[in-house]
């Protein structure tokens, strides 16, 4: 995440227009910048890592890369925690670091204009407001735009060595 986009996210007129991949977590719809998405795949067996929080499912082999898988449903207490052939993993590429997130389902890719996007009121989502870029209304549904890079890099996700978290 660049300093500029960081600043705009915090300002009152965020410029977050662009293409978003939307997905469902429980009752809520979320959107993440399509440019941060590497691929979407099914849920494979993971290798459990000792002494980690429950939402870190473990690591998988993604064409030779060892990639951690995070179940956002567990992290945010949303949806039913089941793993079957319909379970979807979004593989993110965040500045070179590859992470997979488990969600309830992927809906669509949407191009959002600035006029679709509103500022974030308090307490609208299960995800802390500091990781929300804005809200968009699409077909009378509210879409929560997540700053996924910031969220995944946060200390609470426990994906980075604590020394590198800031």
């Amino acid at each position, binding site marked *: 995440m660049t300093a500029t986009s960081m600043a705009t996210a915090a300002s009152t007129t965020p410029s977050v227009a662009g293409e978003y991949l939307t997905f469902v977590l429980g009752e809520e719809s979320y959107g993440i910048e399509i440019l941060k998405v590497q691929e979407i795949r099914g849920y494979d*067996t*993971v*290798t*459990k*890592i*000792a*002494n*980690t929080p429950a939402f870190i499912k*473990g*690591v*998988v*082999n993604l*064409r*030779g*890369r*060892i*990639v*951690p898988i995070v179940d956002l449903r567990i992290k945010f207490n949303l949806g039913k925690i089941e793993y079957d052939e319909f379970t979807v993993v979004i593989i993110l590429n965040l500045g070179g*670091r*590859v*992470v997979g997130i488990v969600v309830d389902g992927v809906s669509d890719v949407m191009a959002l204009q600035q006029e679709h996007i509103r500022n974030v009121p308090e307490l609208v989502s299960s995800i802390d407001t500091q990781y929300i870029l804005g809200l968009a209304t699409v077909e009378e549904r509210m879409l929560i735009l997540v700053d996924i890079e910031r969220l995944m890099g946060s200390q609470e996700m*426990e*994906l*980075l*060595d604590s020394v590198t978290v800031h």
Partner: protein
Amino acid sequence: MSIDMSQFYEVFFDESDELLAEAEHLLLGLDIQSPDMEDLNAIFRAAHSIKGGAATFGMMDMAEITHVLENLLDKIRKQEMALTAEHVDAFLAAKDVLKMQLDGHRLATAVDPEQVADVTMMLKGLSEGVAIAPVPTLTAPVAAPAAVVSAMPPAAPGLTRFCLDLPVLNERDDRNLRDELGLLGSVSQHVLADGRSQWLLDTDSSADDILSICSFVIDVDQMRVSREDMPALEAVAAAAQHDIEVGLEARADTKSKSGVEVQEEVGYGLFETLEQDKVEEGYGFFAPFTPHPDAVVTTMIGDETPLPAAVEAAQRTTRQPEKNTEISTQKSTDKLSDKPVKKDNEKAASTAETTSIRVGVEKVDQLINLVGELVITQAMIEQRIAALDPVQHERLINSAGQLMRNTRDLQEAVMSIRMMPMDFVFSRFPRMVRDLAGKLGKKVELVTQGASTELDKGLIERIVDPLTHLVRNSVDHGIELPEQRRARGKSETGQLTLSAAHKGGSIVIEVTDDGAGLNRERLLAKAQQNGLPVSENMSDAEVYQLIFAPGFSTAEAVTDVSGRGVGMDVVKRNITAMNGTVEIRSVPGLGTTISIALPLTLAILDGMSVSLGSNIYVIPLNLIVETLQPRAQDIKTVTGEGRMVHVRGEYLPIIALHSLFNHDTDITDPTQGVLVLIEAEGRKSALFVDGLVGQQQVVIKSLETNYRRVRGISGATIMGDGSVALILDVPAIIQMGQSHNYITGAAAYASRPPQTKEYTQ
């Protein structure tokens, strides 16, 4: 345009490092009585190259000392001075100073100005010292070139008589040379007693022109040209002397040229002024040469331009191309035939080096990673194919087999990119052993074997320190003083052997001395004194391993070199960190061998896969002492300290991996599972897992690339089925097991031995 020169420093540093190492290697190999010319030239060239680079990049301290060094080397190379042991010592000292200066520039380490001054003085002193000229007559012109030049008459109009001293010529060269020179003037020939020729040439051409012409037939370094009116110097074959005389002639010639001749030869007025300017600025153009800002080359030296003699000569020579070819072939054959075979190999090696390219290590590592993936993918295909009907899928199976072979070859080839010969490490020891033996008053002969054995670059760099320590130890404490050796009926000169060899998937590096050997009794006594748990029943190998215990030294006298055992724990730790093992073999009175086994590359690990519930973990094989299925009576529960296992007189704490990692498993009783005895940093533990899966080589992957560090895990690998297995960090596991016993939940297990009846000291 301004260019930041500092961007080239790193290349210069690397290059100088290599040149210094090379020079040292050659110096140590020099036969002082009859030094090899090629070697002297190579040493000279190293100094020369460093001087050039240092001066270019503004490292004047290095330029200064290489300049002095080069002068002295040049005199020896040209046989104006005979090589002595003193010279070699001075050169080695100069190498040390240069290395110090280099590190000073590179790593900002301290440079001792006194040492620099001392060595500079020493080199200067030697350079100005008594010049031992092989032929006395030759020193005269060398010493007083100016006088000779000033004695020369000004360029006379009309003809000049030149005296050409030529090497032994074959018939064809003789004829060609006569034809060529005939174009310049009239030639008369005299053959000297030893077959060489002395020709007289009356011509209006200059010495330069004569040399230009001759250069297309023979090597001009092998001849000399002098004017008849010069004091005749008796021709002596050494090429070095020819250099000087040719220089003298040329000097006289150029002098006159810078005035009148330049004007004559040049068709352009521009040239003269340029020439004058440029000489001052450090460059110049020879006549007739037109510097022209926009002109293309072809118009610059166009048809109207008078061709220089050299080009004319070249044109003539190209009409007989076979002549040149033959000469050069013949020369190189001569050169090779009188060199020992060793030289040929070295030459081949240096040729190989010069055709290499420099590539960033990251690129190579990326390549290695990609091939690693390919190997895994291929293994997955193989697994799936194995399930198919061999008759129905014969062709697919055949193709898969081909893919497997190609993949393996590719992997091997890619891995070899990172490989470097052990010589890279071994080559630093001759000097060290020489200095060390000198200091200690010992006689040591160093023998290296298998220096061409290759090892991963990363490992090569990391093996240097441990090996240095072992070599020091062997010289200091292994090999006895000459009188002791004589008293024991051995030759006064001890032998130290460094060897490297491939054994399976590992490289075995051994340091062997024919010294006193290790003393079992003394080791045991010392261990007891240090409070280490020892018993008389311990095998020799176990006793020898005691020297790797921290702070263990058996040296009777502490010398400034090393105490046997001091730092040996560090040696062992370094080698273990490389996934390697150390073994000691010793026979009292006959010597000691320290044998290091390392994996060929850091990217691959020999591992033991173990199961724990539905998980597979990999344990580095080099850290496994043994595996066992314990009997109930071997397991002891120590109050407050968890369970212990009794193995060969030792009580080892049991670390249950499932508890440590909070994994579910049905096997919670050690007698139902397997105990893997692991050892790191001198501490042993028994790791309790469900079962053994198998031994295999795995490609190490970092967990931190996309995730973070996990305590107890050193990395990950991808198994044949494509799943991920984690590699255990054995030292961390032992530590975790000691800080907390996961079976009983009891606090802090101390490393002291448990007080139980069965325990015997």
